[in-house]
């Protein structure tokens, strides 16, 4: 019987050994599909290791533009003997297992309900290339060529991507092309192609780009005018620093060839945020990037930033916790520890981007908000958003936009002032005082910054009433923050259901798809995507308007739900929680089944 032909709706997974150059071959595969106008979502599933452990690269291809992960693997390219058994088990019934047939596959690996496509990858590589490292690298191109042929990927597009990838080393392009052809020809000579799961050019990508969130954050910091970056290496945030530095080398060199930026690899995360605080105190825009363990270490300084009112931008690319946890897996589990980081009464502004375009936009927002509010602003990203490529609207910058550097007195302002300068004096009712930058004026505007209790003139005081005036003003400033942070996004014009779905960050992709799945089943659900903490008043209204709210998030303890209950003083029974916390990005199917289970809707 002929199999049903499925076009532009498949998942291809590559199972590799890390450190063998497979990542770049797999990325070229994904990019080629993207260039054919078909939406793709690649996910790199990698170990905390440099060489020798299993690593997977999963590409979801979805003409409908579903960018979340999807369960079920249609084609698995298994070139890692260590994970062979599990890889074969993971193929969907009716799916394909592409493997290196240089060695015969043992009988225990044979499943009756899947198809086997053996390509003698290493044999072909050894026959054509004398150097072992080359055999290894080009073996990757052999399987890329084979799979490309099997799914009908346009060869010219693939070759174009390869040529661009190696544009700096054009000498190696012909050998890559040749390896590609070896795979292509082997498939053509030995198998029926294309498979029933295949791709076909379409035009669904518009002006989208394929970029990772960390690169977008690094670029955002450059566009926001950050001049000081201090950081300490930690997965999965390191590539924010790397992106910032590499683009600075291109975009931030002055006419004398000198750097219009300082890039400091600190001795630890404590020093990293200390440097940021020192730099912003001294009038530069500065930021750091880290992950959960780094934020834990930064806690003391985070409190200083809050209490002494010093702007800080912190990019928190979350990974699986607690402790060292799963450093190369994704989670949204630093919500409470970020929102209330540090001892004493503290609260911090959090921004939740859900796409690389928003990583860029919100990083810029974070600098404006930090300067405007004179406090710490944390951009809450995660490993999935930060390190994986995502199809995203292009990064956008309006040339008319002016940085909001907040309330800073200039030398002229100070000169004209008749009254004494009060660093923590609320002169205009928004609870945000004016600050001065060291060195501004010879005799006016100097003050003493401290983490100890202080009065309006920055003088030390342990008087109860002085302390209360100060911390109550900080509470009032929090109210001001609510009016300045990005508003939530709604997915319907008017409410049409008594059930509301609430989500944020990378959960968005799967949540939007889950909504569609429900719609196909005839159930309309209203949705809201939260984009910032403190919660905008519209969020409370949306919750009020629905009988049942489902909060979807990627941590065990439903931390976002806790934040909502705590900050909006909600009855907990109104908020149902659907969570996913195994370290893999959440799927629409998981959300759908989670909701059904929780609501016991029994939708057929």
């Amino acid at each position, binding site marked *: 019987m002929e199999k049903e032909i499925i076009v532009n709706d498949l998942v291809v997974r590559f199972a590799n050994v890390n450190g063998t150059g497979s990542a770049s071959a797999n990325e070229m595969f994904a990019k080629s599909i993207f260039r054919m106008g078909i939406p793709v979502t690649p996910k790199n599933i990698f170990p905390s290791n440099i060489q020798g452990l299993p690593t997977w690269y999963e590409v979801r291809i979805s003409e409908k533009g579903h960018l979340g992960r999807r369960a079920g693997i249609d084609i698995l390219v298994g070139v890692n003997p260590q994970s062979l058994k599990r890889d074969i088990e993971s193929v969907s019934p009716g799916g394909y297992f592409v493997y290196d047939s240089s060695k015969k596959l043992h009988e225990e690996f044979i499943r009756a309900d899947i198809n086997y496509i053996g390509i003698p990858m290493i044999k072909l590589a050894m026959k054509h290339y004398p150097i072992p490292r080359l055999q290894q690298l080009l073996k990757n191109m052999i399987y890329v060529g084979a799979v490309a042929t099997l799914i009908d990927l346009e060869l010219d597009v693939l070759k174009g991507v390869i040529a661009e990838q190696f544009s700096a080393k054009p000498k190696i392009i012909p050998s890559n092309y040749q390896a590609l052809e070896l795979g292509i020809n082997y498939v053509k000579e030995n198998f029926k192609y294309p498979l029933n799961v295949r791709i076909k050019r379409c035009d669904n990508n518009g*002006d*989208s*780009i*394929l970029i990772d969130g960390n690169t977008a954050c690094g*670029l955002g910091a*450059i*566009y926001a*005018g950050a*001049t*000081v970056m*201090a950081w300490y290496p930690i997965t999965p945030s390191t590539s924010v620093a790397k992106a910032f530095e590499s683009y600075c080398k291109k*975009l*931030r060199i*002055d006419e*004398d*060839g*000198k*750097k*219009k*930026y*300082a*890039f*400091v690899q600190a*001795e*630890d995360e*404590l*020093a990293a945020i*200390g*440097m940021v*605080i*020192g*730099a*912003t*105190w*001294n*009038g*530069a825009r*500065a930021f750091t990037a880290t992950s959960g363990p780094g934020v834990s270490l930064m806690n*003391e300084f985070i409190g*200083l930033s809050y209490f002494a009112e010093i702007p800080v931008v912190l990019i928190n690319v979350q990974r699986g916790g607690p402790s060292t946890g799963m450093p190369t897996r994704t989670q949204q589990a630093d919500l409470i520890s970020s929102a209330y980081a540090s001892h004493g009464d503290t609260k911090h502004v959090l921004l939740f981007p859900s796409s690389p375009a928003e990583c860029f936009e919100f990083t810029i927002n974070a600098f404006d908000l930090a300067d405007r509010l004179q406090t710490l602003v944390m951009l809450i990203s995660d490993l999935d958003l930060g390190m994986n490529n995502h199809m995203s609207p*292009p*990064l956008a*910058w*309006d*040339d008319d936009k*002016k940085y909001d550097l907040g309330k800073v007195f200039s030398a002229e302002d100070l000169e004209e002032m008749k009254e004494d300068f009060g660093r923590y004096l609320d002169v205009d009712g928004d609870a945000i005082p004016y600050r*001065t*930058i*060291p*060195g501004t*004026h*010879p*005799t006016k505007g*100097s*003050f*003493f*910054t*401290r*983490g*100890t209790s202080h009065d309006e003139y920055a003088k030390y005081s342990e008087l109860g009433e002085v302390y209360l005036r100060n911390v109550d003003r900080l509470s009032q400033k929090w109210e001001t923050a609510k009016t300045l942070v990005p508003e939530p996004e709604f997915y319907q014009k008017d409410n049409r259901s008594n059930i509301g779905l609430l989500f944020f960050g990378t959960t968005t992709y799967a949540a939007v798809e889950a909504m569609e799945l429900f719609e196909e089943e005839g159930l309309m659900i209203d949705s809201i995507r939260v984009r910032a903490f403190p919660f905008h008043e519209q969020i409370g209204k949306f919750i009020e308007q629905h009988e049942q709210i489902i909060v979807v998030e990627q941590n065990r303890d439903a931390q976002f739900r806790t934040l909502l209950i705590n900050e909006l003083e909600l009855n907990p029974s109104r908020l149902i929680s659907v969570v996913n916390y195994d370290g893999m990005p959440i799927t629409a199917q998981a959300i759908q089944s989670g909701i059904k289970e929780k609501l016991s809707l029994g939708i057929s």
Partner: protein
Amino acid sequence: MSYIKPTFHHPSLKPNKVGYLKKDYRGVISTLCAGCGHDSISGAIVQACYEISLEPHKLAKLSGIGCSSKTPTYFLSNSHGFNSVHGRMPSITTGANMANKDLIYLGISGDGDTASIGMGQFVHAIRRNLNMVYIVMNNGCYGLTKGQDSATADFGSVSKEGNANPYQAIDLAGLALELNATFVGRSFSGDKNQLVPMIKAAISHPGFAFLDVISPCVTFNNTKGSTKSYSHVRDHIEVTSSLDYVPFEEEITIDYPEGESAKVELFDGSKIHLSKLAPDWNPTDRFTAVNRLHDAKSKGQILTGLLYINPESKDLHSLMGTSDKPLNQIKQKDLCPGSTKLEEINNEFR
């Protein structure tokens, strides 16, 4: 005890070259214990800044936590100050320095703040040759928490509680030398004649200038068996050289006898004159300094003076190649690459 500091000054005290009187360099009244060594160091800082005609707003004073770290309120009220968190003054100073290379950065720390909780940041600031003056007001104990031994307390030193310290001391000057700090000095809060020119020279030095200043704690560590008491330090002090600091373009008015003094020219054209008290003393020779320090220690002496200076010092900005214009003064138009460039970048990802 008076809480208001008198503002009168001696009529003979003239304004300095930038028009400031000495009182313009003072801070609020100290709340440290009467007789605390730290107050003498604050006085030396005021004296040094006044004498070199530094405009107070061109200096930023930063500190960590502890008695020592409270002192920045007691000098230079017209300078911005930052009393940060325990042991983290170096990172704050690093960031501040990155933002504006044109200010002078004066970091004040203590032996607890530096040799224990802040050790990591201290050594890394040295490693980067951050352009700052780093003063440790070293009293060998934790004053604010009532006298526990610190990591610089000498082996066998007896604190007020009467126990001999069983641990080896961390010698911060020795450590700084070991780590290739480009300026290392040690002094005593009670020796203003030595300390004031040393602070001036440290301010002129383009790089990490470290001053370990023994500063007795009158309340908790000035007892008979303490090696950081006034009397012990006075009895065991060994001075390497006496020191004069001559600012750039200033005429040398003192006669330095030929062969008995050494001159070190600093980066900004200022000079240090060292009258040799110790024979064979060359302040630009790190190995001699290390040896002499060990030698003095083994004899129970406290070696003071300018121990080492590297006249070729290149600070962090020079090492990184940052622009001549301070980063905090570069405007949006010179920082933001604009939308056309962004479209090119977008195209890299299509």
